[in-house]
C-alpha cells in the first residue's frame, strides 16, 4: 500500500479526488437501504396487516392458573405397563432405575436434558397411595416409583411405599384414594372406569375409551350419574397450536372444509405393538385368569398375548382404538365435528403376516388401515390412513376451498392458488400460495408475525423454542395436571365424557366396519349405530 501511494507523498490536504475515491462506495448503502425498505413494506403487510384482515387474534393461549396448595390429592394407579409408567411420571413419579439411567446419560452427553426436565416438572401436590397390576413385577416397580418422591436415582432417599393391590376392586374401596389413573389394556377400561366412578373416585382413563359400543354408553352413564371428574387420555388436548388452529377454522381462513387427512406412520416392532416379552412373566407372576376375565373366549396362558395384547381383538382394537382415536380427537378439538354419519374401514395384516414376527400366533389386527368418515351436514370427509411399516411423516392437513392448514407442533395456513377469497391478493402479489399466510409456533414470543422459512425449519424440528424458554413441556404431564386441577376446582377438564363418548363411538364404528366388512351408520338423534 505504501509503495502504491508513493506519489501521494507531497500532498498534505485531502483533495477532491481523494474525497471522490474515499466516498465512492458509500452510495451503495443507499441502494441497500432502498431494498430493505421495499422488502420491509411487503413483510409488514404479510406480518401485521394481513393478520388483521384475516381477523386472527394476536393473543397467546393463556396458561391456566394453577392451584396446587392445600391437602395433597391421593392417587391410585391401575396398570403400570408402558403407558402407566409414562402417566405416573407425568404425575411426578418415576422409577429410581430410570432416573439413574437418565442422570448417567446426561453426564455423558450434555444435550441429554431428560433428567433435568423431569426435575423441573411442576410438583402437582399429589401422593400415590395405591398401585395395582396383574404382573407382580410391575406392582413392585410402581410402588418404587410412587415412593420416589424426591425424583432421585438409585442412590436417593425415598418416601413410604404405597399399598400394593392385586385386585383393582380392593384399590377402589380404599378410603385413602381420591382418584385413579387407569392404564390397563383396553378390554378392562370400561369395567374399571365404571367401578371407579361408582366407588366415587375421579377417573383418568387412557385412550381408546372402550372396545364396544355398549361399553361406551355404559361409561357415559356411570360418569354422568356419579358426577366424578373424568379425563380421557388424549394428551394432544394440551398442544397449544391446536387452540390457534380452532380459532383459524372458526374464522374461515381455509374457507369451507371439504377434506381432512390424518395419518399414523410408524415402522418398528414397538410401534406395531410387537413389544419385547418380559421373561419374568410366568404363571406365578401374572394373574392370567383375571387378565382374560372380560374375554368372551378364554385362551391358555400366553406371555405373548399378555405383553403384546394390542395385536389381538380380544383385548384391543388395533389402529382404530390406539391411534385413529388420537388423530380423531385432535381434529374434533379443532373442527368440532363430532361423530361421523358413516364410517368405512379397510386394511390388512400386510407386513407382520409372517410367523417369525411372533412366538406362538400371528397377530389379528391390521398393520395397514384406512378409515373414511363422512360428515354430510358439514360437507366434508375425514380420512384416516395408517401404516405400521413405514414412518414417512404425512402430518395432518385440513383442506378448504380457500386454503389448507398443516398441523404438527407448528401450525401453518396456506392460501390456495384457486381460492375465491384470496384471488385478488394473490393476483396483486400480496399473498404467495407457497408462503404461509398465517403461522403459529408455540413458545415464540410474538404471534403477530409470519415466521421466516428458516424459523419454520428449526421450529418444526423442535430446535428453536423448546430450548429457548429452558423447558420442554411434556403434554402427558400437562394433561394429568389439567385433570388434577379440574378435580380441585370441581369442574370437568378438556377431554371430558362428552368428548370421550364421541371418540369411543367413532372408533367403535371404524372397528365394526373393518371386522364386519360393511359401512357403518350413526343416527345422531336416536344415538344408534346401524
Amino acid at each position, binding site marked *: 500500500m*505504501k509503495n502504491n501511494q508513493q506519489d501521494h507523498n507531497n500532498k498534505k490536504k485531502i483533495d477532491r479526488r*481523494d474525497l471522490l475515491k*474515499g466516498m465512492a*462506495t458509500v452510495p451503495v448503502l443507499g441502494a441497500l437501504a432502498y431494498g430493505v425498505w421495499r422488502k420491509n413494506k411487503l413483510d409488514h403487510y404479510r406480518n401485521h396487516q394481513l393478520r388483521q384482515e384475516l381477523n386472527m387474534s394476536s393473543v397467546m393461549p393463556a396458561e391456566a392458573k394453577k392451584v396446587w396448595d392445600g391437602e395433597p390429592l391421593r392417587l391410585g394407579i391401575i396398570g403400570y405397563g408402558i403407558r402407566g409408567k409414562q402417566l405416573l411420571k407425568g404425575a411426578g413419579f418415576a422409577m429410581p432405575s430410570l432416573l439413574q439411567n437418565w442422570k448417567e446419560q446426561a453426564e455423558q452427553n*450434555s444435550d441429554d436434558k431428560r433428567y433435568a426436565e423431569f426435575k423441573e416438572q411442576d410438583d402437582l401436590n399429589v401422593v400415590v397411595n395405591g398401585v395395582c397390576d396383574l404382573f407382580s413385577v410391575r406392582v413392585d416397580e410402581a410402588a418404587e416409583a410412587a415412593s420416589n418422591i424426591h425424583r432421585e436415582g438409585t442412590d436417593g432417599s425415598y418416601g413410604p411405599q404405597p399399598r400394593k393391590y392385586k385386585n383393582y376392586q380392593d384399590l377402589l374401596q380404599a378410603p385413602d384414594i381420591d382418584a385413579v389413573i387407569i392404564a390397563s389394556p383396553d378390554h378392562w377400561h370400561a369395567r374399571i372406569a365404571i367401578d371407579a366412578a361408582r366407588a366415587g373416585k375421579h377417573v383418568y382413563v387412557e385412550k381408546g375409551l372402550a372396545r364396544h359400543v355398549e361399553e361406551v354408553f355404559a361409561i357415559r352413564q356411570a360418569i354422568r350419574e356419579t358426577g366424578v371428574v373424568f379425563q380421557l387420555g388424549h394428551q394432544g388436548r394440551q398442544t397449544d397450536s391446536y387452540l390457534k388452529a380452532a380459532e383459524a377454522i372458526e374464522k374461515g381462513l381455509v374457507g369451507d372444509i371439504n377434506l381432512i387427512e390424518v395419518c399414523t406412520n410408524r415402522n418398528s416392532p414397538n410401534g406395531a405393538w410387537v413389544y419385547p416379552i418380559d421373561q419374568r412373566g410366568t404363571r406365578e407372576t401374572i394373574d392370567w385368569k383375571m387378565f382374560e376375565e372380560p374375554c368372551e373366549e378364554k385362551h391358555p396362558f400366553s406371555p405373548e398375548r399378555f405383553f403384546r395384547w394390542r395385536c389381538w381383538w380380544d383385548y384391543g382394537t388395533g389402529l382404530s382404538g390406539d391411534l385413529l382415536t388420537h388423530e380423531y380427537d385432535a381434529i374434533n378439538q379443532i373442527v368440532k365435528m363430532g361423530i361421523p354419519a358413516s364410517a368405512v374401514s379397510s386394511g390388512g395384516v400386510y407386513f407382520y403376516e409372517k410367523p417369525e414376527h411372533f412366538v406362538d400366533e400371528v397377530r389379528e389386527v391390521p398393520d395397514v388401515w384406512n378409515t373414511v368418515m363422512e360428515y354430510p351436514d358439514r360437507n366434508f370427509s375425514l380420512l384416516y390412513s395408517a401404516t405400521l411399516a413405514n414412518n414417512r411423516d404425512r402430518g395432518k392437513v385440513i383442506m378448504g376451498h380457500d386454503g389448507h392448514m398443516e398441523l404438527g407442533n407448528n401450525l401453518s395456513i396456506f392460501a390456495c392458488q384457486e381460492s375465491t377469497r384470496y384471488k385478488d391478493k394473490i393476483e396483486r402479489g400480496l399473498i404467495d400460495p407457497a408462503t404461509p399466510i398465517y403461522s403459529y409456533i408455540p413458545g415464540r414470543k410474538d404471534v403477530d408475525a409470519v415466521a421466516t422459512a428458516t424459523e419454520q*425449519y428449526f421450529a418444526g424440528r423442535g430446535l428453536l423454542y423448546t430450548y*429457548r424458554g429452558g423447558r420442554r413441556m411434556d403434554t402427558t404431564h400437562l394433561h394429568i395436571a389439567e385433570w388434577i386441577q379440574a378435580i380441585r376446582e370441581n369442574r370437568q377438564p378438556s377431554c371430558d365424557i362428552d368428548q370421550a363418548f364421541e371418540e369411543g363411538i367413532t372408533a367403535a364404528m371404524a372397528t365394526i366396519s373393518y371386522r364386519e366388512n360393511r359401512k357403518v351408520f350413526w343416527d345422531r338423534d336416536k344415538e344408534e349405530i346401524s
Partner: protein
Amino acid sequence: MNKRYSNPQLWMLVVLRVAIGWHLLYEGIVKLMNPNWSSVGYLMDSKGWFAGIFHDIASNPGLLQAVDFLNIWGLILIGLGLVMGVFTRAATIAGIALLGLYYLSHPALINANYVIPSDGSYIFVNKNLIEMLALGVLLVFPTGRIIGIDRLIFRKTAAR
C-alpha cells in the same frame, strides 16, 4: 497511483469487497429487525468436530444472548466496513473469523444433513468457506485505502 493494480484488477477487487460487505450487512440487518431471531436453532443443528461446543452455547441462555448480540453487530459492522472501506483490514479479518465459525459449526461433511435444505451440492467446500477465502484474497490484495474511507483516515500514514 494504483501502480500495483491495473484498473480492471482494482475494479473487480472493490466490487468483490462491496458485494461481500452487502451480503454480511443485510444478514445483520435482517436479524436485527426480527425480534424473534435467535441463533439457537442454527447452533443446535451444528454437526461435525465442534458440534458439542456450539450445542453448549445454545443451551446456556446468557451465553446465547451474548452470541446473538455479537453475531448481529459483528455482521453489521463488518458489512459496513467492507462496503465503505472503513477500517477495512480489521473488518476483513473479523469477517474471516466469523465465516470460519459458521463453517466449523456447519461443515460440509459427507454424512452431515442439516435442517435447512442446502441450495446446492457441497462436499467439504461450501459457500461459507468460499466467502471466507474470498475475504482472504481481499486481505492480501487490500483496496480500502485506494477506494474507501480508509483513504481519508489513513492518509497521513500512507503519505509518510
